[in-house]
C-alpha cells in the first residue's frame, strides 16, 4: 500500500504525473478566476453557468461524434456564455429578479443537458462511454489529450489575469473610478465573464457540473478568512484548491470506484471549515479571543475603578486595600477577580501582598480616569439627553470603557469642565 501511495505522490507513473500537473493547473486557475467572481459577488452565476454548460458538452459530442476535449470545451464555453447572456437579458428586459432568472436558466439548461445525455447514452454510440463523468468529474481518468487541452486553457487563464490584474482590481473595487481614468469597464467585465465561463468549462473536468461552483467559490471564501491582502488571498485560494484537487484525485486513484469531484469538494469543505474556525483574520477563534480580551480589560478597569472609589471614601490611596473589601464592592467570583488582579499586577497597576492590594501610581491614574469618564458621561446624559440622574449609571458603566482620549477632551469642553456628577460625586482630575 505504501508503495502505491508513493507511486502517486512521487509522480513515478507518467500517467499520474500528467494528471496531477493538469489538476494543479485546473484547480489553481479556477480558484483564482473564482476569487474575482467572489469579490464581484457573483458566486451564484458560477453555479448557474456550470449547470447550463452540460447541454453544450452534449451538443458538441453529437455534432462531432467524438470526445475530443477541444470541441467539448468549445461547446461548453459557447453555451455557458449564451446562458449568461440570457440571464442578463431576462433581468434587464423583464420584471423577473436576478435570482429567479438564475434559477430559471440553470434548471432549464441543466434539464436539457440531462435529456441530451440520456439520448446519447441510449444511442449505442461506443464513444459516449465516459461522457456522464462530466456530472461528477473524472480528473483521475484524464487522457493525454485532455491533459494538454485543459492545461493550455488553464495557463491561458492565468496569463490573462496576470496581464489585466490591476484593471480587474480597480474595476471590481470602484467601477466609476475605473471608468473615469478611461478603462473600458464594460469590456473588462465582459472579459471577466468569459474567463469565468472558461474556468467553469475546464473545472468541470475535475469536479463535474454539479459541484463546479464549489471549486470556483469555496477556495476564495476560505482564503478570505486568513488575509486582508488581495494577492495573498489569490495565492491561498489557489493553494487550497490545489491541495484539495490532488487529495481528491488521490482518493479516486486509490479507490477507482470513488468519484473525483465529490472528494475534492469534501477536502475543500474541510479546509473551509478549518478557516472559518481558526482563520487568522476573520475566523471564529480570533473574533472570540478579541471579545474575551475586551471582557478581560473591562473587568480590570472596573477593579481599578472600584479600588479608586474605595480610596476616595476613606480619602487615602497609599494604604493597602483588602481583597475582601474589593469583593464586596464588585461582586466577582474569586477566580475572575484573582485573574484580573494577577493581570493588573503584571501591568504594574497594583501590588499584591497576601490579602492586601496596593495601588501603584499607574493604577491610581487609571482608576481615576475610569471614574472620571463614568461621571463625565453621567453629566453628559443628564444635560443633553435630559435623563433623570437615577437612569444614567447603567449606561455610563458601559461607556466608560469606550471613550477615547480625544472624545474625553471633547466631552470636557462641551460640558465646560464640570466639578460634580449628577449624584454629587466629584469629578476627579489630576
Amino acid at each position: 500500500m505504501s508503495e502505491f501511495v508513493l507511486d502517486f505522490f512521487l509522480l513515478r507513473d507518467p500517467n499520474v504525473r500528467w494528471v496531477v500537473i493538469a489538476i494543479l493547473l485546473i484547480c489553481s486557475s479556477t480558484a483564482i478566476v473564482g476569487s474575482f467572481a467572489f469579490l464581484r459577488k457573483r458566486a451564484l452565476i458560477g453555479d448557474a453557468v456550470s449547470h447550463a454548460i452540460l447541454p453544450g458538452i452534449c451538443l458538441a459530442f453529437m455534432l462531432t461524434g467524438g470526445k475530443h476535449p477541444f470541441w467539448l470545451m468549445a461547446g461548453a464555453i459557447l453555451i455557458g456564455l449564451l446562458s449568461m447572456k440570457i440571464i442578463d437579458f431576462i433581468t434587464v428586459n423583464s420584471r423577473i429578479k436576478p435570482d429567479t432568472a438564475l434559477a430559471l436558466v440553470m434548471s432549464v439548461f441543466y434539464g436539457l443537458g440531462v435529456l441530451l445525455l440520456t439520448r446519447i447514452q441510449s444511442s449505442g454510440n461506443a464513444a459516449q462511454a465516459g461522457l456522464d463523468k462530466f456530472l461528477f468529474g473524472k480528473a483521475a481518468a484524464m487522457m493525454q489529450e485532455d491533459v494538454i487541452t485543459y492545461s493550455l486553457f488553464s495557463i491561458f487563464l492565468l496569463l490573462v489575469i496576470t496581464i489585466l490584474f490591476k484593471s480587474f482590481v480597480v474595476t471590481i473595487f470602484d467601477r466609476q473610478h475605473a471608468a473615469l481614468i478611461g478603462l473600458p469597464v464594460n469590456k473588462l467585465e465582459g472579459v471577466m465573464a468569459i474567463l469565468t465561463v472558461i474556468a467553469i468549462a475546464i473545472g468541470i473536468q475535475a469536479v463535474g457540473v454539479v459541484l463546479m461552483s464549489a471549486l470556483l467559490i469555496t477556495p476564495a471564501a476560505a482564503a478570505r478568512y486568513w488575509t486582508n491582502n488581495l494577492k495573498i488571498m489569490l495565492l491561498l485560494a489557489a493553494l487550497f484548491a490545489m491541495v484539495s484537487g490532488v487529495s481528491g484525485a488521490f482518493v479516486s486513484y486509490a479507490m477507482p470506484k470513488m468519484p473525483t469531484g465529490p472528494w475534492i469538494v469534501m477536502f475543500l469543505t474541510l479546509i473551509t471549515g478549518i478557516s472559518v474556525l481558526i482563520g487568522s483574520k476573520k475566523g471564529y477563534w480570533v473574533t472570540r479571543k478579541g471579545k474575551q480580551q475586551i471582557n478581560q480589560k473591562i473587568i480590570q478597569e472596573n477593579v481599578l475603578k472600584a479600588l479608586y472609589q474605595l480610596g476616595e471614601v476613606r480619602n487615602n490611596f497609599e494604604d493597602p486595600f483588602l481583597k475582601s473589601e474589593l469583593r464586596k464592592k464588585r461582586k466577582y467570583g474569586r477566580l475572575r477577580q484573582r485573574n484580573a488582579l494577577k493581570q493588573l499586577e503584571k501591568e504594574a497597576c497594583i501590588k499584591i501582598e497576601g490579602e492586601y492590594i496596593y495601588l501603584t501610581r499607574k493604577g491610581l491614574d487609571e482608576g481615576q480616569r475610569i471614574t472620571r469618564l463614568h461621571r463625565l458621561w453621567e453629566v453628559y446624559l443628564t444635560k443633553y439627553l435630559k435623563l433623570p440622574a437615577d437612569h444614567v449609571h447603567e449606561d455610563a458603566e458601559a461607556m466608560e470603557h469606550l471613550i477615547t482620549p480625544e472624545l474625553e477632551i471633547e466631552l470636557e469642553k462641551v460640558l465646560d469642565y464640570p466639578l460634580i456628577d449628577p449624584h454629587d460625586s466629584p469629578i476627579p482630575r489630576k
Partner: protein
Amino acid sequence: MKENTTAAIEVHNLSVTYDGKPAAWNIDYELPQGKLIGVMGPNGSGKSTSIKAIMDLVPKASGYARIFGKELDEVRQRVAYVPQRGSVDWDFPASVLDTVLMGRLTKKNIFKRISKKDRDIALECIRKVRLDKYAHRQISQLSGGQQQRVFIARALAQQADLYLLDEPFAGVDASTEDAIISILKEMKEEGKTVLVVHHDLQTAPNYFDWLVLMNTRLVAAGPMEETFTSEYLNEAFGGRLNILSQMGDLIKRKKYPIREKKNK
C-alpha cells in the same frame, strides 16, 4: 500655464433620464476655474446625477459637457472624482495605500509596475489627509470619516485640476468635515477647481464661493452672494424649507457685503 478664462466646466442643455423619468433637465451653466463650488438642491434634485453625466458615468439624454473647453476623453488626467462613500464595498481586501494608489493608475501605466514615485505621491497624499498611521490598515477597519478621507487622498493622488466630490460630508463626524473642507480650500488656493455636492444650507456660505442650485432643472448658478438668496433657495428647495431659506438670508447678510457695495 493654462489661461484661467476657459470655463472649468461648461454644461450645455444637459438632460439625464432614468427609465424615461427626467432626473436632470436642461441643465445649462458655466463654472469658472479656481473656485470652490457647491452643488445644492433637495433630495432627488439631480445633483449627483448631473455630476455623473458630466463624468460620462451615466448616459446623457441630451446636451453635452465640456471640461476646460475640451471633451472629457482629452482631459481625463486632469479630472478626479470622489464618489459617494457607499458606492463601493469597503470589505474589499485592500489597504489604505492600495486604495490611494488606484489614484495613480492611468490608461497608460495600467500594465506597468507601480513606480517608486507613484508610491511616494500616494503616501504623501495619505499624510495630507492625516491617515499616515493607517496607511497599511485594511479599509474595512476604518471609520466612515476615515474612509471618506481615503477617497479624498485617492483624488489628491490623481493630481488633477478639477475635482468633483459627491456628498463628501455625508455621515462623517464634525472634525472630519472640518479637515476635509480645509483640504478643499487649500486645493482652491493652489488654483484647482473644486465642485462639491452638498446639502447642508447652513454651512454652504462658509464653505463655497460659487453655488449651483438645482431642482431637477437648474435654478441658479453663480457667485455665492448672487445665488444664496431666499428667492433662489425657495425656488430650489420649495416652500418646504422656508425657515431655513430665511435663515440663509440672515447668514448672507452677516457674512457678505450687500450687492450695491460689491458692485462698487
